[in-house]
């Protein structure tokens, strides 16, 4: 069995379109130092650094861990760089956890970042390939047809996506780090925002952000002595499937269902809506909330949108299972960091340290990330108690 491990420090930068006040090194260091401060530690207390980010073309720096070692206090230590597409922030946290859960290290630092203002993500995602069909689509163009198919199958009304867009921005307005601060956003405003990729409107899409997130993960002995309450890692899981194959279920991918089943089994979760107190789930386009509610077993097939419409996922409406109280990816999206932010925000909740977006009394939380053509999944469950 895996050794117990816990998050003992969390640090984030503020998220915004362009952090032109810091270099790439300055950005990752800011998150790292914030995490160390939160843990009451310094770089000297760290045994290894695990770095994650999405494609190198987003900044134009190849294998940036080579350059970032100095900024992350890693000289003389092991440095690992993870890249699993959009799920990378979550995968990086899981690879970092494995350094401790394997008994190999006592305490590690993990950092994920994206400084999207350095280039153009749309270009980086869509440059033509010699042997493949050129889809100049970007992420929204890729996911829109899948969302349309979800709407066709479930019969969900048009305002579901709009409601998610409003709900996550109202959550984000409670999170001072969130990129989009839209405390007065209305359903009408979202409905009237221009259509980008039918049915995804502008305000139903994530922003493009600069930012970094970091965590310190420690073994049981050190976590027991931590200055603040640790978030115990109760389950970890990853799954991948190919982008395309005959009969692939793209609306409700099997890799997501399998990954959830795996992480729930480890954490002893039988009914996720009942057993979990809060979830931070990767929702870059509004409609992915109802879709993932079903994929992750919070609602029966075809009924995820009903939870959204009832307000079950809204912290502000007092819903029973708040999703993305931090504002989620719809409020801040430094792509390579977005998954780790979900994992870190889940940990903040069970540490009872989430400020104005705290879910009262949260004890068990899900962190979720996905990437590629909704084919790469990373999830963890963290709790205020060891078991």
């Amino acid at each position, binding site marked *: *069995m*895996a*050794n117990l491990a816990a998050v003992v420090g969390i640090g984030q930068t503020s998220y915004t379109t362009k952090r032109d006040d810091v270099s*790439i090194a300055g950005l990752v260091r800011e998150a790292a130092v914030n995490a160390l401060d939160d843990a009451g530690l310094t770089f000297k207390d760290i045994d290894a650094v695990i770095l994650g980010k*999405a*494609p*190198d*073309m987003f*900044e*134009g*720096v*190849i*294998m940036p*861990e*080579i*350059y970032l*070692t*100095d900024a992350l206090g*890693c*000289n*003389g*230590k*092991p*440095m*690992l*760089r*993870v*890249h*699993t*597409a959009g799920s990378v922030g979550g995968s990086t946290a899981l*690879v970092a956890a*494995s*350094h401790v859960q*394997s*008994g190999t290290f006592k305490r590690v630092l993990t950092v994920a970042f994206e400084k999207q203002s350095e280039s153009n993500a749309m270009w*980086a*995602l869509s*440059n033509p*390939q*010699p*042997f*493949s069909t050129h889809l100049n689509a970007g992420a929204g163009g890729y996911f829109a047809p899948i969302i349309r198919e979800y709407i066709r199958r479930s019969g969900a009304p048009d305002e579901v996506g709009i409601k998610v867009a409003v709900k996550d921005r109202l959550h984000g307005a409670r999170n001072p780090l969130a990129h989009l601060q839209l405390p007065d956003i209305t359903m009408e405003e979202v409905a009237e925002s221009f259509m980008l990729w039918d049915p995804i409107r502008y305000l139903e899409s994530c922003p493009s952000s600069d930012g970094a997130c970091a965590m310190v993960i420690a073994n049981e002995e050190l976590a027991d002595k931590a200055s603040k309450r640790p978030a115990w890692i109760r389950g*970890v*899981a*990853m*799954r*991948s*499937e*190919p*982008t395309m*194959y005959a009969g*692939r279920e793209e609306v409700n991918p*099997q*890799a997501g269902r*399998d*990954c959830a089943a795996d992480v729930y089994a480890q954490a002893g979760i039988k009914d996720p809506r009942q057993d979990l107190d809060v979830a931070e789930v990767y929702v870059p386009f509004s409609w992915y909330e109802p879709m993932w509610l079903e994929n992750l077993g919070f609602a029966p097939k075809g009924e995820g949108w009903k939870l959204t419409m009832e307000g079950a996922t809204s912290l502000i409406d007092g819903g029973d299972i708040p999703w993305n109280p931090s504002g989620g990816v719809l409020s801040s999206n430094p792509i390579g960091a977005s998954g780790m932010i979900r994992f870190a925000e889940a940990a903040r909740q069970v540490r009872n340290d989430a400020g104005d977006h705290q879910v009262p009394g949260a004890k068990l939380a899900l962190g979720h990330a996905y990437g*590629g*053509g909704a*084919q*790469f999944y990373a999830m963890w469950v963290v709790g205020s108690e060891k078991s």
Partner: protein
Amino acid sequence: MKEIAIVGYQQSDCVSDAGALNEVELIIPVLERVFEQVGISNAQDVDFVCSGSCDYLQGAAFAFVLGVDALGAVPPIKESHVEMDAAWAFYESILKIRMGHADSALIYGFGKSSPGELPIVLSQQLDPYYLAPQWVDTISLAALQARLMLDQGKITERDMAEVVARSRRNALNNPHAQLKGDVTADEVLAEETYLSPLRKADICPVSDGASAAVICTVEKAQEWGLPYAVITGIDHIIESHNPGMRDLTDSVSTRKAAENAGMGEGKVDVAEFYAPFSHQEIILTRALGLGDDTSINPSGGVLAGNLMMASGLSRIGEVFNRIVRGEADRGLAHTTSGPCLQHNLVAILEKGEAA
């Protein structure tokens, strides 16, 4: 801690230009051979898969995504990827087995470097504010390192030429090598310098291809009834990125990683170094204090063929091959990343007990 073994290793031939083959087509034949070697049918038969590749070699974001197509990942698999040499995917897989979430893992690395100008491409690994804008390519940085060693009297050009000559001769026995031949140091020295003090022969070639390995717990290896080599230690360490802040004529991180991996606990019969430049093999050999009783780079090393993102895994595979063939009892495999040996990984492999 759980004992972990290597049970399979395969690589493609190192070729200077794989032509119209895409990355998936480079990976599939190697995977098929390693599956056959281990007696499994596809990635479904292992508990974890991890790969190493680089988007900038492919010239596209997400180089590894199509790689998943080569695996048979239906139903979905537990899979991860490092934007590093696959030797680090090997490292990640070991952690996964140690934590009890897998008993076996498939690791692969691939790179098709030929379409671009590799030394120039890799210059964009450097600090984007102070170094990369100068477009200092990897060969130029290595030439500076070699020049430092020559100026300090630590090596001669003949020492470098001897490394090349031995690589070419050793590679005669390596069916996958790209550069091989019965070459003497005098013949190497007769070549003109390319980027002084380096001759073309001092520099590893650009190669296209892939390599793959299967690792598992020792119990699993015995259950499968396969010959195996035990991974008795592994560690990796990165140093400062600023070349002016390091002693480029030594490799402190390699020495420390080898120490942590337990190199000193026994004799090293064979060592495979990822030394893309002749003088770097000398740095590494000296950093570890290896002498005449260690066979250095019997495969020819990467001077004979350099599968970017897979060469590190190949060093481990070469040591494994020698151990299971009974040519060595204990060996050391080294991998590097970054300019002038900035980041180094060392693994120690030993002969397993008969199943």
